[in-house]
Each structure stands twice: as structure tokens, then as C-alpha cells.
């Protein structure tokens, strides 16, 4: 009654639930069963549904089901002007709303040849790095929670709150910010921006050390992540993984470094890499990325220029006929936006290339053969934000 046999899944002539590819086991004694993780589950962090085929505690196959939070943002984009579209891009990956804004703005700037004043570029860069920091802090807290260490969640939020306060003062919003505009940003930073950033720069190195000691150097953490969910570089490339998932496997690709946008080429920072591509490497890459973000912020804070924050503000932007593409490195990986314009004030077609969709698809490769508990850890190290997958 509790362990359904395969015969009960005889839907439409299939012997397995939708999406499963491995044949039923020949062994009569094998007791496989299917468990729904999500759409309501504490560890999917959103409405992701993962159907897991289990043999006892061991994961045999994982099939993610999408679409629970599909809002047809790409279709809605066709009926809105480019400036109106910026607020829709907030709703993709709500933890990297600024990067999403930036990506769309850069495509428009590229189409119209709009330049950005120096102060505008510095604001963009600093805000994006602050965002990376807050996104990774949240990831770190949630990682601990998924492993059963509830306390990390609150510590991660303590510093994230400082950064969110900066955002709130900047534009009135903490998550869906709608801040950047083609040619710069909607408003200039307030006077309190710099003191707040400097305070953050002062406390963060110590805080990161503390967090490393609390979770990342814990023997249980090491046992739970080392050698678990190994993603080979070839697999990572063939699935189109980006961000820390790709760099954890040892492939050095960071849009900020290898296809520099904004003013990233004027800054000195490293791209942290993993060796084996296991869960631990993905975690360490993110931890080191936070330090690199601090490095960038420090350099930017030292030479933050004055002047205007935006150039050529317009009510509507008419993109010439053609197609335009831009890409940025969000905290989760490569976000690309592809715009096809028919010369009007609205895009003819707008397509986002979201990092989470590609990163989610390696889940089956990583989790098969591990225990249920590891499936949760692996999902956490992929750092998925579900609204970005469905759009």
C-alpha cells in the first residue's frame, strides 16, 4: 500500500511515471518506489517539483517537473516597452534583480549606441557586486539549513540585511528593484551609500572567516559534501552549466573576466575554481567569490567618481530593426537576453537565457546513486532560484 509497485503506474501504456528513462529493474527483489519532493517541500525553495525514484534510501533517477510558477514573462515582454520590461526582469531571478536589469539595459544601449557616464558605471558595478554578496550570503544560510544546521540561516541573514538596507535606501525596494535604466540608473545613490558600503567592507572579511569556521570547516559538512555529486567538466559544458556550478568543475569561465562588460576590465580580481566538481568545490567557489566581490568593491569604493549618473534619458527607446544580445554574470551564472526588434518601442520577441534552467538539468547526473539526503545537499549547492527556471 505504501510501496507502490510498477504495475500501478500503467498510465498510457507506459510502465513508469512521466520522464523516467531507466527500465524497471530485472531483479524481483528490488523495491523501487517514487517520492514526490515538492512543489511544497522545505528544501526546494520555491515551487519546484522533483520526482525521485528511490531504491531504499538510494536515488535511482530524478525527474524535475517545471511550470508551477510560469508567468509567461517572455510573452508579456512583447506587449511592454523596453523601460517597462525592466521591472519584469526583476521577477526572473529575484535574488539577482540588479543583474537582470543590467542585462536588459545593456542590450538597449548596444542597439542605440548609448554610453554610460563613469559614475553610472561605478554604481552599476558596485550594486551588482553587493548583490552577488547578498545572494551568496542567502545561499550559504540556506545551505546550512538544508543540511540541518538551522543556525546558519540567521547568521547569513544578518549581513544580508545590511546590504538590503543599502538597496532599500537606494531605490525603495529590497528584492524587485527596477533600478537600472539604459544609460545609467534611474536615480543617483544617496549620500549614505558610501559610508554604508565602507562599513560593510570593514566587517565582512571577519564575518566570512566566522562563517567558514561555523559551517564550511565542520567535519560533518566536509563528510557530507566531499566526493558527493561530482560534475565532470565535460558534463558541465554539455549541459550548458554556468556560474559556480561550472567553475566548481574547474572550467574558468566568468563573463566578468572573459567577456568583460561595464567596467569590469579595469578591476583586479580572480576567478575561483574547483578541482573535482563535487558539492564541496561548488561551495568553496561561492565562498571565495564573496571575497573577490569584496576585493572589487574595495577598489571601486576607493575611486568612486562624481558626475552624472545617467546619460540620454528618454521616455521610450526605439530599437532599430535587428536582433541584439547581451550577457552578464549573475550570482548564479550566465544570464543572456536576446531581443528581436521590428523598429518599434516594444520588442518583437524577447528571450532570456537563464542560468538556473541549465544548472537544474544536471541534477539527475549528480544525484543518481547517492542518498536522499545528498540529493537535497546537491540541489542546495546548485543554488537554484525557481522563478528564473520557469519565467
Amino acid at each position, binding site marked *: 500500500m505504501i510501496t507502490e509497485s510498477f504495475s500501478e503506474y500503467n498510465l498510457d501504456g507506459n510502465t513508469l511515471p512521466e520522464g523516467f528513462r531507466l527500465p524497471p529493474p530485472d531483479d524481483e527483489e528490488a523495491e523501487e518506489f517514487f517520492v514526490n519532493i515538492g512543489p511544497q517541500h522545505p528544501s526546494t525553495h520555491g515551487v519546484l517539483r522533483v520526482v525521485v525514484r528511490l531504491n531504499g534510501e538510494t536515488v535511482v533517477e530524478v525527474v524535475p517537473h517545471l511550470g508551477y510558477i510560469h508567468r509567461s514573462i517572455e510573452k508579456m515582454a512583447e506587449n511592454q516597452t523596453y523601460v517597462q520590461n525592466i521591472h519584469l526582469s526583476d521577477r526572473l531571478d529575484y535574488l539577482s534583480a540588479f543583474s537582470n536589469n543590467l542585462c536588459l539595459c545593456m542590450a538597449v544601449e548596444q542597439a542605440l549606441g548609448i554610453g554610460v557616464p563613469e559614475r553610472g558605471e561605478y554604481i552599476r558595478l558596485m550594486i551588482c557586486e553587493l548583490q552577488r554578496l547578498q545572494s551568496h550570503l542567502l545561499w550559504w544560510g540556506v545551505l546550512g539549513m538544508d543540511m540541518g544546521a538551522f543556525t546558519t540561516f540567521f547568521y547569513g541573514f544578518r549581513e544580508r540585511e545590511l546590504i538590503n538596507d543599502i538597496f532599500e535606501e537606494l531605490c525603495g525596494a529590497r528584492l524587485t528593484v527596477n533600478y537600472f535604466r539604459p544609460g545609467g540608473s534611474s536615480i543617483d545613490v544617496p549620500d549614505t551609500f558610501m559610508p554604508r558600503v565602507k562599513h560593510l567592507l570593514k566587517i565582512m572579511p571577519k564575518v566570512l572567516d566566522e562563517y567558514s569556521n*561555523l559551517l564550511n570547516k565542520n567535519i560533518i559538512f566536509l563528510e557530507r559534501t566531499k566526493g558527493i555529486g561530482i560534475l565532470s567538466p565535460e558534463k558541465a559544458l554539455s549541459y550548458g552549466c554556468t556560474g559556480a556550478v561550472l567553475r566548481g568543475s574547474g572550467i574558468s569561465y566568468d563573463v566578468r573576466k572573459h567577456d568583460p562588460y561595464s567596467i569590469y576590465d579595469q578591476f583586479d580580481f580572480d576567478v575561483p575554481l574547483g578541482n573535482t566538481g563535487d558539492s564541496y568545490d561548488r561551495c568553496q567557489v561561492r565562498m571565495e567569490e564573496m571575497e573577490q566581490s569584496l576585493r572589487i568593491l574595495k577598489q571601486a569604493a576607493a575611486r568612486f567618481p562624481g558626475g552624472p549618473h545617467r546619460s540620454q534619458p528618454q521616455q521610450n527607446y526605439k530599437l532599430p530593426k535587428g536582433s541584439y544580445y547581451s550577457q552578464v554574470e549573475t550570482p548564479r551564472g550566465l544570464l543572456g537576453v536576446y531581443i528581436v526588434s521590428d523598429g518599434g518601442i516594444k520588442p518583437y520577441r524577447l528571450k532570456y537565457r537563464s542560468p538556473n534552467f541549465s544548472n537544474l538539468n544536471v541534477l539527475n547526473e549528480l544525484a543518481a546513486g547517492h542518498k536522499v539526503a545528498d540529493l537535497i545537499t546537491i540541489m542546495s549547492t546548485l543554488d537554484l532560484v525557481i522563478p528564473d527556471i520557469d519565467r
Partner: protein
Amino acid sequence: MMPSSVELYPVNNFIGDIVRSIFPQPAAAVINGLLALLSLMALVGSLGAVLIFLERKVSAHFQLRFGPMRVGPHGLLQPLADGIKAIFKEIIKPAGADTFIFFLAPLLPVSAAFLVLAVIPFDHHLQVADPAGGVLYVLGVSGLSILGILLAGWASNNKYSLLGAMRSGAQMVSFEISIALLMLLVVMLSGTASLRGIVLAQEGTIFDWWIFKLPFLGILAFIMYLVASTAELNRTPFDIAEAESELTGGFATEYSGISFAMFFLGEFVNMFVAACLVTTFFLGGFHAPLLGLPLLDPLLKLIPGFLWFFAKAFLIVFLYMWFRWTFPRVRVDQLMYLEWRIMLPASLILLMLSGLFVAQGWVG
């Protein structure tokens, strides 16, 4: 007065004396027993509230929060509010659940705690019963609490619950062995299996407690007992049966209202019981922590034994809470590895070495 009954029911405190002075002997023994059981019930009831409040406050301060602050001063009445809420919530039984077992299971962990508390020596004459094989009795009845979890997982007709119950079953079979071996060590040192006898064997200064008296091995045994009892209690880092981030609550997924509250109460009172056992076995029970200083010791002796006992037990409870709010959770196979490849051989070696120490007369 029959000496044997005095040995078994050592309620020789002043309340017992008053009862004995009023009633004739057979009736007095019965009344004393009933009074002792009633006080145990009161203890279990009040402990639940105290421990839940304590856990909420301790976890809050570990996590940069205040915890409950609204109900009563500093949220002191929060457990009461929680209890009332739990009582008035609807109990939902999932379709296909085994009704009898589903409602029986939540009662078992609390019963286990109640049964073990009956043999705990809180003070010289504050113990409901002192059977000669007290340690064996404790081992026997403490298994009930995990039986409750096992039954709950089976009866819920839910895959998450079943997974949690199976994990818990594996855990029970494994860690009980280490616990038994470490208890055996204490029995061997004390020369008695009666809990009161074990405490009396540790009389003297702080260095006569088993944790310090046995050079190095005592501390090692104490730490191993703490680990094994944390696993037995299903608490983080060994809370794999509940594992809310994996199994959404494990065995307790389908429970609500008062039946969930009973599990909750059972978990907390069992934590206190485990702390009581640690105190009894390693920390000298109700003895004051005398340091051998002529000025300080008489002062320490002025404090009644049961206060020392509770102070030690709550210190251990705090340790359990500290573990819970610091460590991540281990995986089920790592838990088995820890027991069968590390804890079991280590406790066997420890037992042999201590046997050598006792045989050579190096202990005390």
C-alpha cells in the same frame, strides 16, 4: 519495617516519614508509592513546559533572536499558550492510516520517559523505586521511545514517514549497543547495577566521579555516552528520523494537534531523562561538586542534593541544545559507519581497558 521494601522504595524523606507516622505500615507504603508517582507526573508535565521554553530561548540566542517575548514576562507563558493551541487543533488522520497504531504511537515516547524517571535517584531519599537491576530496567524501557517513532512512521501511510521510521529503526538497533556497553562500564566500576548504588559509589570529591576518577578513559567514556545518547534521542546532528529538510518532518509528517504535541513532549522529556542518566553515571548524581577545599566544601554541602542533580542535568541538556543549534545533520550511512566502525570497537576497547584498571586496583 521490612528492609527489602525499604531497599526497593527508598522514599525515606520527610513526607514519607509523615505518612508513615499517620498510617499503619501496609497502607503507608501504598500511599507513599502513589504520592511518588503523582510527583513524577507533575515533574513530567512541568519539565515539558520548562524544556520547551528553554529550547526556544537557547536556540533564539544562538540565532541572534530573542525568542518568545509576548506571552508573559520574557515569554514565560509561551509553553502554556502552545499547549492550549495544540489541544484545540484538529487531529487529522490520513486516509489508509492504521487507526489504533496511529493514535498509540505518540503515547510511547512519553511513557518511556515516565518509566525511566521512576528509577532516577534525584536525592538520597528521592527516588520512586530502586530495583537491583536498575540499569537493565533503564535499557529495557528506553527502547519504547523509538518504538513509538517506528510505529508512527509505519501507521501514517506516508512515504516520508516510512523513510523516517526505517532510519530511526536502524539507529535504535545500532546505538543501543554502544549505550549498553558504556553502561556496563559504569556498572563494572561501581560494582552494582542499582542507580542509587552507582551514585553512592561516586561519593567524595569531584575527582571521585566516574568522569574524572578513571584517568582519561572516564572523559572518553563520558563523551562517547553523550554522542550515543544524542543519537538515541534523535537530535541534531543525528535527527535523521525527522530530517525536516529532507523528509519534511519524517515520522511526524502526518501528525497534528495534541498527538504531535505528545511526540514533542516525549522528545523533550526524553532529553532530560538522558541528561539524568549521564548525571547519574558520570557526574556523581546528587553529590555536591566538592573540590577538597576545607573552606568551600561545607558551603557547597549546604545546597540540597536534588538541586545539584538538577543543575548537572540541565547543564547536560544545554549541551544537547548546543549540539543541535551548531551542527549540520549526518547522513544515514555515515551514522551507521560511526556506530559500527568507530563507536562499537572503541567502547569495547574502553571496556577492556577499564576492566584492566579495575582488576589492577588502579581505580580509587
